C-alpha cells in the first residue's frame, strides 16, 4: 500500500505485517499510527499498523489514571472522558493522533510553558523491543528506555499499553483572550505578560515587513467553569480533491491573513469558545492537507533558546517576507523548561511553525534557515521534518550519541528503522 505522512511528501510503497505475525521480526520495520506526523518518521518498506490495537483497558476514577493500548486516538479519549469531566494533560493541534504517536513525538501543546510535554502525563508503558521481549518503562523502571522512547520517533520499540494521567475540568469551553499585536516586540511582550495563562499561542502574519514585521494575534485560554460538558456533534467539511497548486499563492495567503487579522477589532478581546475551536481548529476540515495540491507540502517547526529568540525570529521572518514565502499558518509559541528525554524538541524559548508548499526553492530556503537556526543553538522538530540532513541533525540535538548507543545496547537499530532514521542516523 502507498503511505505518506500528513504533508504527503514523500509517498512510498510499504507492506503491512501484523504485530502478531512472526515474519514481522525478520527485517527492519517501523510501527505506524494515524500518519499525522508530517514527514517520513512513520515510513518504511515494512510497517505494522498500531491503529488496530485500540482498547481502553482500565480507568481509575480516583487518580484519573487511564490505561489504553497505544493505537487509541486522542479524539477517542476526549469523546469518552470530556463528558465525564476529564481532559488530557497535553493536546497538540490535532486530536487525530494515537497515544503511541503522542509519546513517540513527545508532543507539546499550548500549555508547554506551564505543563511541559505529553510525557509528563505518562505514568508508564509497555515497550516491545524484540519478538519475545516486552519491558515495563516508567520513571522507576528502565528509565533509559523511557527517556529515549518519549520523543524517540518510534525507533526504540513498539509502545503497547500505556498509562496516562487525566485531569479534572468542569467545562468543554475555553475562555479565550485575544491580543492584537502590531509587531514582533509586542507579540513577545504579550507572551511574557501572559505567561501565567494555562494555554497560549500566537498566529503570525508572515507577509508583513518592516515596522509591521511579526504582526500577530496572541491567544490565551483557560478552561471555563460553566459546567457545560455536553459535546457538540458537528458535521465536518471535507476537502474533496487536491487543489491546483497555484491555489495557495501570495495573493490568497495575503487575503486570508488580512481577513484573519482584521476579524479581531479591539486590541484586547475576550470570548468563550468550544475546546475544538481552541485546540483543534483544523480538525473540522477533513484532509485539509489537500489544499497544498498533489505535490504535498512540508512543515517546518524550529525552536530557539530564549536569549536568541527575538533576534532569531526577526531574522527568519525577514527572510520569509523577502522571499514572499509566507505560509498559510505560522504559529509562534513560548515554551517552558526542557525535559530529560533524549530527542524531545522543546526547550525554554520560542518556536515557530510554518507550512511550505513542496517545491525546490522552498526546500532550499528551509535548508538555509535550518543552518541559521542551528547556528544560534536552535533545533528543528522531528515530527514535522522530512528534509533535515544528517549533519544538521547531529549538530543540533545534543543527545544523539546517547540515543545511538542505547539503541545498540538493546539491539534496536537493526529492527526499528524509518526513512527518517536512515536519513538522520544513517541506519
Amino acid at each position, binding site marked *: 500500500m502507498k503511505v505518506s505522512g500528513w504533508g504527503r511528501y514523500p509517498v512510498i510503497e510499504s507492506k*503491512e505485517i*501484523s504485530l502478531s505475525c512472526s515474519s514481522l521480526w525478520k527485517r527492519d520495520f517501523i510501527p505506524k499510527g494515524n500518519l499525522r506526523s508530517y514527514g517520513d518518521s512513520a515510513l518504511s518498506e515494512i510497517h505494522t499498523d498500531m491503529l488496530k490495537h485500540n482498547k*481502553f*483497558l*482500565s480507568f481509575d476514577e480516583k487518580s484519573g489514571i487511564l490505561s489504553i493500548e497505544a493505537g487509541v486516538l486522542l479524539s477517542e479519549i476526549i469523546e*469518552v472522558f470530556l463528558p465525564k469531566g476529564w481532559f488530557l494533560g497535553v493536546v497538540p493541534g490535532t486530536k487525530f493522533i494515537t497515544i503511541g504517536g503522542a509519546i513517540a513525538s513527545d508532543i507539546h501543546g499550548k500549555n508547554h510553558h506551564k505543563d511541559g510535554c505529553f510525557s509528563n502525563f505518562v505514568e508508564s508503558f509497555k515497550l516491545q523491543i524484540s519478538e519475545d521481549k516486552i519491558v515495563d518503562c516508567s520513571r522507576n523502571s528502565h528509565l533509559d528506555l523511557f527517556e529515549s522512547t518519549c520523543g524517540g520517533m518510534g525507533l526504540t520499540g513498539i509502545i503497547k499499553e500505556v498509562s496516562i494521567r487525566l485531569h479534572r475540568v468542569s467545562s468543554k469551553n475555553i475562555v479565550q483572550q485575544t491580543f492584537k499585536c502590531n509587531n514582533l516586540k509586542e507579540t513577545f511582550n504579550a507572551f511574557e505578560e501572559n505567561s501565567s495563562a494555562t494555554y497560549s499561542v500566537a498566529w503570525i502574519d508572515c507577509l508583513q515587513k518592516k515596522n509591521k514585521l511579526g504582526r500577530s494575534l496572541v491567544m490565551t485560554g483557560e478552561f471555563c467553569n460553566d459546567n457545560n460538558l455536553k459535546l457538540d456533534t458537528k458535521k465536518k467539511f471535507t476537502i474533496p480533491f487536491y487543489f491546483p497548486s497555484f491555489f495557495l499563492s501570495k495573493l490568497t495567503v495575503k487575503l486570508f491573513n488580512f481577513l484573519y487579522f482584521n476579524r479581531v477589532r479591539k486590541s484586547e478581546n475576550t470570548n468563550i469558545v468550544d475546546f475544538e475551536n481552541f485546540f483543534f481548529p483544523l480538525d473540522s476540515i477533513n484532509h485539509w492537507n489537500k489544499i497544498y495540491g498533489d505535490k504535498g507540502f512540508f512543515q517546518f517547526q524550529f525552536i530557539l533558546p530564549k536569549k536568541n529568540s527575538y533576534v532569531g525570529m526577526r531574522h527568519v521572518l525577514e527572510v520569509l517576507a523577502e522571499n514572499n514565502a509566507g505560509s498559510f499558518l505560522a504559529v509562534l509559541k513560548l515554551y517552558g523548561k526542557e525535559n530529560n528525554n533524549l530527542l524531545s524538541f522543546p526547550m525554554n524559548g520560542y518556536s515557530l511553525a510554518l507550512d511550505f508548499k513542496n517545491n525546490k526553492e522552498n526546500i532550499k530556503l528551509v535548508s538555509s534557515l535550518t543552518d541559521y537556526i542551528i547556528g544560534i543553538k536552535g533545533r528543528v522538530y522531528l515530527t514535522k521534518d522530512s528534509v533535515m540532513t544528517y549533519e544538521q541533525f547531529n549538530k543540533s540535538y545534543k543527545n544523539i550519541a546517547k540515543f545511538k548507543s542505547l539503541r545498540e545496547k538493546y539491539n534496536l537499530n537493526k529492527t526499528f528503522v524509518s526513512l527518517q532514521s536512515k536519513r538522520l542516523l544513517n541506519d
Partner: protein
Amino acid sequence: MTRWLLIIGSNSDIGIACARFFASKGFNVFLASRNIELCRKISSDIAIRYSVQTDYGHIDLEDTNSHSVFISNLQFSPDVTLISAGLMYSQLEAENNFQIAKKMIYANYLGVLSFSELIVKTLIKNNKGTLIYIGSVAGDRGKKSNYIYGSTKSAIETYTQGLEHRLNHTNIEIILVKPGFVDTKMTIDLNLPKILTAMPGEVAVEIYSAFINKKKIVYIKPIWRYIMLIIKLIPKFIFNKTSL
C-alpha cells in the same frame, strides 16, 4: 429498558466492531469466544467507552456438546444475537488436508447450526429477538479459488432461508450478512482491491442499520450485489474457463 447483544465469536474484527457500535447505541453486550482473556479486554474496553453493562463467557463452536450449558447459563434472553465466528483457510490447504476442510465445516456450519437451533428455542419462548449470521459472497457461486470455504457459507445461506421460513409467524428476525472483502486479521495477507474492501467499522454500521430497518440480506458494499449477480449469470461453459 436495556437490550442485550450476544456475540458468538466476539474477537473477530467484525465481532469487535459490532460490539462497539451496538454499545454506542446503548446495548449491553455479552462477548463469547474461545479466547476468554481477549473477551475480558474487549469487555472492559466497551464498558469504559460506552458506560454500558458488559459480560463475557467461553464458547467453542466446534465443541457442540457445550452449547446447551452455555445458553442455559445466560442471565438474559438476547435481543440481538450475532454469530460472527468463522474460519477461512485457503482453498489449497482445504483441498489437500481434509482435517482443515473439516475444521472449517465445523466452525462455519456445524457449530453455527448446533448453537443456532438451541438459541432459537430460547427466542421462541420469548417470541422476540434478532439473529444475525455472517454468510459470504463466496457462497453465491462455487468457484475453484474458494469453493470449500464457499460451500460452508452457502450452507449458512440455505439454513437461514429455512429458518426464516420456519419463524415466519413469530417476532424473530433473521439477517444474513455477506461482507465481501473486509480488512481483517483473516485477510491481512491478501492483496485486496480498496474499492471492494470494507473496514470492520463499516460492516458494523451496516449490520446495525439492517437490524433497525429489518433487512434480510445485507451486502456491505452495494457493488458486491452486482458483481455477484454478474458472476451468477455467467453461463457455465464460459464460467468454467475463467480463473475466478
